[in-house]
């Protein structure tokens, strides 16, 4: 066998992790370029109602988003669904749970960092305990022992941290392969890579594409767990894209609020306003008096108004808000 000539060993190149971040940055630039070229929707100029509806939907990039949405659907049909189906069939339930548990355990540093940035010390404590218990007694994270003693899993990411600190979500974005997102959450993903231990394993252990591998595994695992649900939703929808957009925003709202209901009992709004997603209800604050907005959008953007609105209110253009809708 031919051996290569003996060369002095090259110093360890930061390949895996740094390359991941560079690729993410490249994606961001490419997306920005695409935005400039095409994919912007023109706001309806002559119809004030339509303009209001347009602003409320907060989806100025709708044509581009729909394009990527269809692209993702094709990728789903061609790649993720078959993989997920195989995964679902081939791996017994406990193995699938094992995969999920390990993935979650590895994510602990990211979750812990974001818990602390949000000032959630209780949840940070839970994250630490979970990591310790599951890594040791749970054999490297395979078994979720911590859940059995009352320490349930919760997820956090930097997008949520930004939201808690008042950063608005911005326009709706559909990212290729990654799916529904927005500028804040997309930026959050990149920051989270800094807290991901796998980034550094990739960098210094010389393992290429480790992020891609785990990302794919996570995607397949999630897809397998929702194998039929999404198909049913799609079949039953008039506008699947709009349904997913709304679902995503409401779910993000719920995640940012850590499952706590905003007081006032209003259903989560369309989530299109910066304030709605940044207002984290800490304790039961007194209901602020509703301020009728000048233009009467259906879902108001100011958090005080949102919290004061009872459920199912249809806002009339002027005057005080009626308390309930007459059937």
């Amino acid at each position, binding site marked *: 066998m031919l051996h290569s000539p003996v060369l002095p060993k090259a110093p360890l190149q930061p390949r895996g992790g740094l390359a991941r971040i560079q690729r993410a940055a490249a994606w961001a630039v490419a997306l920005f370029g695409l935005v400039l070229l095409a994919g912007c929707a023109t706001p309806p100029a002559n119809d004030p*109602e*339509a303009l*209001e*509806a*347009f602003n*409320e*939907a907060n989806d100025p990039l709708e044509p581009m988003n729909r394009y990527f949405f269809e692209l993702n659907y094709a990728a789903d049909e061609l790649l993720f669904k078959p993989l997920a189906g195989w995964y679902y069939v081939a791996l017994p*339930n406990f193995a699938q*749970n094992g995969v999920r548990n390990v993935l979650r355990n590895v994510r602990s540093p990211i979750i812990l960092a974001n818990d602390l940035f949000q000032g959630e010390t*209780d949840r940070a*404590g*839970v994250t630490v*305990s979970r990591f*310790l*218990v599951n890594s040791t007694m749970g054999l490297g994270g395979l078994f979720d022992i*911590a859940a059995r*003693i*009352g*320490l*349930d*899993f919760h997820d956090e990411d930097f997008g949520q941290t930004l939201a808690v600190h008042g950063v608005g979500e911005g326009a709706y974005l559909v990212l290729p392969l990654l799916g529904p997102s927005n500028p804040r959450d997309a930026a959050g993903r990149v920051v989270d890579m800094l807290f991901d231990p796998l980034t550094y394993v990739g960098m210094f252990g010389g393992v290429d594409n480790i992020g891609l591998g785990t990302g794919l595994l996570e995607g397949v695992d999630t897809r397998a*767990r929702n194998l039929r649900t999404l198909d*049913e939703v799609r079949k*039953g*929808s*008039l*506008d699947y*894209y*709009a*349904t997913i*957009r*709304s*679902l995503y925003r*409401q*779910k993000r*709202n*719920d*995640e940012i*609020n850590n*499952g706590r*209901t905003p007081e*006032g*009992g*209003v*259903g*989560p*709004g*369309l989530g299109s306003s910066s304030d709605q997603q940044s207002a984290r209800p800490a304790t039961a604050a007194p209901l602020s008096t509703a301020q009728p907005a000048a233009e009467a959008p*259906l879902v108001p953007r100011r958090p005080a108004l949102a919290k*004061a*609105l*009872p*459920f*199912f*209110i*249809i806002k009339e253009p002027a005057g005080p808000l009626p*308390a*309930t*809708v007459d*059937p």
Partner: protein
Amino acid sequence: MTATMRVIRTLLFALAVAVAAAPAGADDANPAASAFMQSLGSKAIKELTDPALPQAERQARFHALLDEHFDMAAIAKFTLGRYWRTATEEQRAEFRGLFEDFIVQSYSARFAEYHGEGFTVTGSSADNAGVVVHSKIDMPSSEDVRVDWHLHPAAGNSFAIADIVVEGVSMAVTQRSEFASVIQNRGGVAGLLDALRAKNAQSADSSGAAAQ
């Protein structure tokens, strides 16, 4: 087991106890509403989830349940959103009918897939429009699903469901968002009514074909 391990275990246990003992907020502001939901849940499970039930029968029962226990008038008005004001009486009436059929078609198939997951009411709280009953559905393979039922007071000291919020996602808000998009993209309320008619016909065909 070394002394260190014992100390760590005790600390972790203490932390676990502290976390578990934190007030869960499972108070019951409106026991009547909670009881209502618990019995409605059992009734729905009993009547709708039999896998041997023919699809038409299941849909008919679900339709009856909707009419009796849901505030369909309020829900229809909410999901049409801002366009309710500008819609004509006929459009509103037609929308109400089509919307109900749409809901029946979309959701009745899901009941057939029920596999005995437990439905437990965990408490209730008040909000501006009425009561919110909190419940959870125990999924066998994954974590419990939080479901909140927003109830309006109804005739006869009873309640009517105005919205269902699953893990923070409101069904009414999602539906309204979807309809708004259809209205904007397919030519107003008339376009929405056409789309609903077409979708209902399509669902009826496919469920009819499946039943054969």
